[in-house]
């Protein structure tokens, strides 16, 4: 029972972090049909911005968070403006390849400034163990869980309630109609990229607080792909459900079957989903008439 509780809590934390990162991928795909393979590198940007501001410059952590968010918004908007916008109208596969190139570029620029060695993160979230009956979870994981849940709730409200959120849904649904309603599609794309970068940066800070800051932080970006495929590339609830399922699947398979298996199982699941339900649990089935 203790093991089950332990694995469930760890799996939930990982899962909600996956969901947070997946939200960015889903947003960009929904609004512009582009799959962003550089999402993991946006985590790096967040982790290193925080590391620089708090760990190297020595600013207090609330200021560090503000700087991190500002850097993330800037990075998202710049990527959209400088890299994606000139590619409007190009074949979608070229755009996807460009995001892969972008991921190498961001990684290289960061190692240019900070080196490749793993460094201790200025742990501003306490890591004291918290007991849940027989299970023990470090406090930073609980913080990550709580923050991820709060942020996802905030974004769901954002899409339901705010003019910007509704404009984004409109663009995802029908671009021509959105244009004729006075919605600027360029602005919506910029907002989508900025949000994607911000959620990734926050996830990056949370992950770095748990595992330390190094290039490895971006690996989690790759692990999010089974999540978005399972949930459906264009579904925000799908990202949350998919995140929790994949997170739990990892810890259960690693904890009950064989340690190390958690590295493989999500990708086995990815292949199975693609074979059985290629649009995912909540994805919209696209029937293209040619």
């Amino acid at each position, binding site marked *: 029972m203790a093991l089950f509780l332990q694995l469930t809590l760890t799996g939930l934390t990982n899962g909600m972090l996956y969901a947070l990162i997946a939200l960015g991928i889903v947003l960009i795909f929904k609004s512009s049909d582009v799959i962003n393979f550089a999402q993991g590198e946006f985590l790096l940007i967040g982790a290193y911005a925080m590391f620089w501001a708090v760990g190297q410059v020595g600013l207090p952590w609330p200021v560090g968070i503000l700087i991190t968010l500002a850097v993330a918004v800037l990075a998202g908007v710049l990527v959209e403006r400088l890299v994606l916008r000139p590619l409007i109208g190009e074949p979608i596969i070229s755009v996807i390849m460009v995001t892969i190139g972008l991921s190498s570029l961001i990684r290289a620029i960061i190692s240019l400034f900070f080196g490749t060695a793993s460094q201790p993160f200025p742990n501003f979230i306490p890591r004291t163990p918290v007991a849940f009956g027989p299970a023990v979870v470090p406090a930073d994981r609980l913080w990550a869980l709580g923050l991820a849940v709060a942020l996802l709730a905030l974004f769901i409200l954002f899409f339901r309630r*705010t003019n910007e959120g509704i404009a984004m*849904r409109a663009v995802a649904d029908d671009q*021509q*109609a959105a*244009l004729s*309603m*006075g919605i*600027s599609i360029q602005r919506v794309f910029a907002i989508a990229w900025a949000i994607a970068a911000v959620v990734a940066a926050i996830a990056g800070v949370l992950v770095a607080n748990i595992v330390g800051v190094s290039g490895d932080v971006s690996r989690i970006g790759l692990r999010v792909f089974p999540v978005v495929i399972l949930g459906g590339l264009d579904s925000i609830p799908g990202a949350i459900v998919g995140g929790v399922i994949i997170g739990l699947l990892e810890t259960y398979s690693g904890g009950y079957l064989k340690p190390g298996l958690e590295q493989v199982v999500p990708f086995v699941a990815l292949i199975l989903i693609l074979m059985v339900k290629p649009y995912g649990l909540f994805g919209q089935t696209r029937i293209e008439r040619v």
Partner: protein
Amino acid sequence: MLAAGLNGSHLREGELQLQVQNVNLSFGGVNALLDVSLHAYQGQILAIIGPNGAGKTSLLNCISGLYHPQAGSILFHNGATADLTKLPPHAIARLGIARSFQNIELFRRMTVLDNLMLGCHVHMKTGVLENLVYWGRSQREEVEFRRHVEDIIDLLEIEAIRRKPVGALAYGLQKRVELGRALALRPALLLLDEPMAGMNAEEKEDMARFILDVNEEHGVSIVLIEHDMGVVMDISDRVVVLDFGAKIAEGAPAEVRADPAVISAYLGQER
């Protein structure tokens, strides 16, 4: 804030509203529009007719900014004057030009009500934080636009379907919802691309009645493309005829109907 009524124009009845001047549009070697000029006046219904491929939709797309013509200008007067050929589509919508599409372009996954509320989007002023809290100004704004949208729902007689997702509605009703969404923008000028295409006689009659209501009771100027000559002759104040991208006739419906150039464009020439 939103003033009452459906008409967003500041002009008086009969004043010059839209000036299309020597517009040329080509795609590669195909000339879609050749030196087209026309005028539209506040409070009138202007019909654009012509055989298939004459350039009617291209002209409408130039006005709403989806296409940018290579030459010519399109001046829109509403207090200030703007050249529409230099503006992106969303900016043109903000000037008060709303449109419907030949192939329905609704937000299919949203309800009728949400589609209409989206039509008010350009008028909404509240920010992200206010909307998240949904208190005070944000709430007042929502209530105000909801009232505006309810007026449109009453006008178009779509009360029963307000909460249905648009994708599930019959074709004729979708066309009506699209008209409603364009009206929600509170347009100074309404562009309708074949509002009655593919409808049966009864649906056409309803649609013609709605268009006349919007024009006569609310004073909204309309430019429409339509193939049904009976409807065009009945409801329009003036008619412009295009053929192979060029304007071949313009005038009152009766004049245009009798014009030899128009007859030969539609029926071919006797040799």
